[in-house]
């Protein structure tokens, strides 16, 4: 670690400054935007790697604080780095490094004008996320939070000439602001009339249980809107497909996680005194997001929309871990609470890695083959073998299959749920395992969803002509390989990360995992005690790989390796076409059958004598109809009433000013 060069705080701040500088440097029009095209993104990726190093270092050293000579008079910016911030900086730096490197190749064919703007907004976005994680007062936090929303809004609306993308951007902006208002109000509640907005002052505020719950609700819904939990998720499936793929990867992989950071920071740290009733609410919302997200993901044909709904599901899984942790902490079981928090934080990191990877894979398909609808894909493994391999890793990881990383965090969440017998409250004790059942169901559905994605997109026969499809370039490949390697490292060596996350728990909760859990070595993951539960991904992988290889060579040795290539078996019907394969709609059919009432379906079935039969199916999100559209109508109605004030005549407005002045004089004497 570069201890001699910089402390983690100054280092991380320097990286944020580097990102800003790279973004601004891209604007300098050196002829053909050479800097923006060739150097900006690799530099940004390098900065991300260094930031990951500082984040890692921050988890092992004492927290640091700093006051910047910036900001308003008497309201300077405060910065701080501690274990929690360090962990999220590690996430931001390492995941964005892969995505940014990929962006080098992805944006290569943009025109100079657009490219310079993308480079600027992209790096401002990265820098603002870093500042969100470093902020130590509510003022700087909100400034960075809004900068993050604004820069990402511009990135989402990169193709702003399309009306659909403009409206997607608007929806994103709207939800982001509703969330921001809730967060602002939460800080207001915590602040409670003192003149100091630093986190230390907010932490010291002594709240009654009622006001603490109000602050919790505001923080939960404010950050939840950004994280994409139901019912505030509607912007995700609109904004993610609208944005260019590396940006979608950043939004889903990293930005949603800043909301998780905010939740943990405000609820555990600033509000403190976590109550178990809060945990139940978080669990309910988490379970809803998990099931709803995966069921809707299964119905999507647009690959990026599907991935967006899957992000809703994964946020749900994170919330399940967080909720369990809050229930246990609320009842005073710190060790079990630490386990839940570790599961949530680990899934945060894991989701960032594999969802980033999958969005990049979707981007490669979009870029190379111009396809975003699964029903048009097929057989891409033959034209894009490298992309196919990396996406396979992502698919296995997100389906929570051992020995990759998605499994580890689900395993930890299950282990947290299995601590339920500790709870004293009878009803809560039997409710907590039900959330594990929800997670089990969602996990299996995720596997089905991603078998659909991979099977339809990469396997089988091409459903539309794909002469254009080609594998991605070197920069894209390295970017994806980096994230795929992350899936393996996080999956195979979870014990090291467990110890790291335990340090955060000790700081936040005042206690961590039991000593028996910490005694195990790197090979074994045993979060409670080795005789209660353990898992070793390395042994798991070694056994499967060695048996697979031994079986392969034994079969070759004792028998033969003769192969005859032939046409696939046509069942006696030679006129087989690729259209006869399962489509993406067909794959979801059983789920539509089982979970029919959950969807709002419009189907158009062909008639029996239709010469060109076409089956059309549209699935709509029910939340639009019970929440968003009524809310929009209500706002419309209120504003039409308020509009009565607007008469458009100067004398009327002067009259308003007069009355306001009188009112002010009466109240402020």
């Amino acid at each position, binding site marked *: 670690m570069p201890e001699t060069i910089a402390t983690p705080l100054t280092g991380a701040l320097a990286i944020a400054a580097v990102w800003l500088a790279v973004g601004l440097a891209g604007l300098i029009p050196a002829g053909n935007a050479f800097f923006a095209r060739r150097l900006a993104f690799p530099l940004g990726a390098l900065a991300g790697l260094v930031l990951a190093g500082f984040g890692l270092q921050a988890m092992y050293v004492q927290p640091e604080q700093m006051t910047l000579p910036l900001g308003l008079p008497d309201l300077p910016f405060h910065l701080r780095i501690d274990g929690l911030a360090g962990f999220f900086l590690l996430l931001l730096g390492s995941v964005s490094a892969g995505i940014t490197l990929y962006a080098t190749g992805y944006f290569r064919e943009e025109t100079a004008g657009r490219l310079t703007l993308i480079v600027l907004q992209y790096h401002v976005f990265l820098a603002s996320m870093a500042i969100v994680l470093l902020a130590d007062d509510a003022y700087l936090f909100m400034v960075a939070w809004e900068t993050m929303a604004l820069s990402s809004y511009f990135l989402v609306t990169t193709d702003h000439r399309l009306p659909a993308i403009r409206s997607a951007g608007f929806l994103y902006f709207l939800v982001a602001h509703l969330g921001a208002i809730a967060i602002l109000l939460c800080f207001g509640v915590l602040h409670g009339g003192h003149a100091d907005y630093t986190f230390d002052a907010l932490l010291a505020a002594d709240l009654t249980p009622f006001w603490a719950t109000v602050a919790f609700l505001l923080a939960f819904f404010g950050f939840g809107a950004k994280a994409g939990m139901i019912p505030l998720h509607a912007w995700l499936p609109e904004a993610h497909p609208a944005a260019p793929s590396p940006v979608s990867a950043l939004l889903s992989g990293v930005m949603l996680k800043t909301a998780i950071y905010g939740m943990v920071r405000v609820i555990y740290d600033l509000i403190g005194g976590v109550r178990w009733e809060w945990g139940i609410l978080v669990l309910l919302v988490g379970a809803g997001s998990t099931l709803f997200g995966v069921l809707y993901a299964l119905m999507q044909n647009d690959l990026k929309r599907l991935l967006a709904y899957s992000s809703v599901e994964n946020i749900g899984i994170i919330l399940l871990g967080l909720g369990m942790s809050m229930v246990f902490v609320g009842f005073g079981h710190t060790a079990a609470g630490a386990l839940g928090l570790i599961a949530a934080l680990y899934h945060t990191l894991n989701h960032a890695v594999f969802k980033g990877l999958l969005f990049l894979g979707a981007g490669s398909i979009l870029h190379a083959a111009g396809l975003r609808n699964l029903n048009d894909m*097929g057989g891409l493994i*033959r034209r894009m073998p490298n992309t196919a391999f990396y996406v396979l890793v992502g698919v*296995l990881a997100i*389906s*929570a*299959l*051992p020995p990759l990383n998605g*499994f580890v965090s689900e*395993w930890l969440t*299950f282990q947290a749920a*299995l601590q*339920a017998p500790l709870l004293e409250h009878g009803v809560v*004790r*039997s409710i907590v*395992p*039900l959330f594990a*059942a929800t997670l*089990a169901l969602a996990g*299996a559905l995720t596997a*089905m969803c991603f*078998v659909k994605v991979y*099977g*339809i997109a990469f*396997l*089988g*026969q091409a459903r539309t002509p794909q002469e254009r499809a080609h594998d991605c370039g070197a920069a894209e490949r390295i970017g994806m390989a980096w994230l795929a390697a992350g899936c393996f490292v996080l999956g195979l060596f979870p014990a090291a990360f467990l110890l790291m996350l335990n340090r955060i728990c000790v700081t936040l909760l005042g206690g961590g995992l039991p000593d028996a859990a910490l005694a195990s070595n790197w090979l074994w993951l045993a979060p409670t005690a*080795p*005789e*209660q*539960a*353990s*898992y*070793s991904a390395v042994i*798991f992988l070694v*056994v*499967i*790989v*060695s*048996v*697979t290889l031994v*079986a*392969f060579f034994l*079969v070759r040795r004792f*028998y033969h390796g*003769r*192969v*005859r*290539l*032939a046409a*696939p*078996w046509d069942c006696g019907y030679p006129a*087989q076409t690729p259209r006869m*394969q*399962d489509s993406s709609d*067909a*794959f979801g*059919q*059983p789920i539509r*059958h*089982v979970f029919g009432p959950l969807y709002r379906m419009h189907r158009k079935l062909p008639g029996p004598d239709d010469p060109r039969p076409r089956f059309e199916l549209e699935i709509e999100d029910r939340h639009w109809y019970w929440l968003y559209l009524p809310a929009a109508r209500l706002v419309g109605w209120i504003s039409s009433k308020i509009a009565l004030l607007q008469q458009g005549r100067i004398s009327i407005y002067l009259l308003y000013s007069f009355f306001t002045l009188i009112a002010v004089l009466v109240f402020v004497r």
Partner: protein
Amino acid sequence: MDHHGFALLQSVFVVLAAPLLMGWVNQCRAWLQNRAAPSIRLPYYTLAKLFHKDAVIARDASPLFRATPYILFGCMWLAGGIIPVLATDLPFAPAADVIALVGVFALARVFAALAAMDIGTSFGGLGARREMLIGFLAEPAMLMTMFTAAFISGSTQLTTIVETLAHREFAIHPSLAFAGLAFLMVLLAENARIPIDNPTTHLELTMIHEATILEYSARHLALLEWATAIKLFAYMTIGFALFVPWGIAEAGDWAALPLAFVALAFKLAVGGAGLALLETLLAKVRLLMAPEFLSAAFLLAVLGMLIHFLVRG
């Protein structure tokens, strides 16, 4: 005997004995259906025949298609090495607890479904879709069954569960009764048995598991069939470990091994005959009813878990 060696020996035993169980089930079923029974060694002959044949592979099969039979075989071998079939003295058993065991089966299922979709025939996709449909309900039901046992014994380690459950006095735990029924339903569904699937049919409209392996032949098919046999063996022995754990030798108790062997043979003989009886008595349900069958299993398993908290037993 070194206990690492024992673990290896046990997994080899599972792999070698699995086709015998398959043969026994087929034999029993033939008897029950008044047919002349094939030899109990028939599965071995079938495997030997398949290994000798030339593999016929579709022209545009991807490497995934060729690798899958080996991966499936590896997954099932691992399962055979973790489950306390004869003894609980398995040094590598801690590498995967019951949750990871369910994960092994899920890994195998995902690869099987992907390989089925690789060639791009209509049956492959159909089979993959149905296989995943069965899986998405069977897997959580299985997990909840495991959780009931885990709550009773305070551990998700299969070896610890067996040692705890074998030492309690014989009593009917209501939670375990629910879990047992759910587990039986999952076993039938996951191993492509009646009433969910029929292992002996290739009828297009109804087949599930057979549709996924339709494109395979020769050594690849042999490995897949073998993996299927190991899977049945593994599920049976998981069931024994959870619900009738008596007779499984404990760590370090080598003298108990012969007894464990006899107990296992007895349990397998009864279990296999029972499976054949079930398959003779039941009729295959319509495919669209399969989710109902399995959601019943899932709810039973969840109920079992709740009952554990209600009555503490």
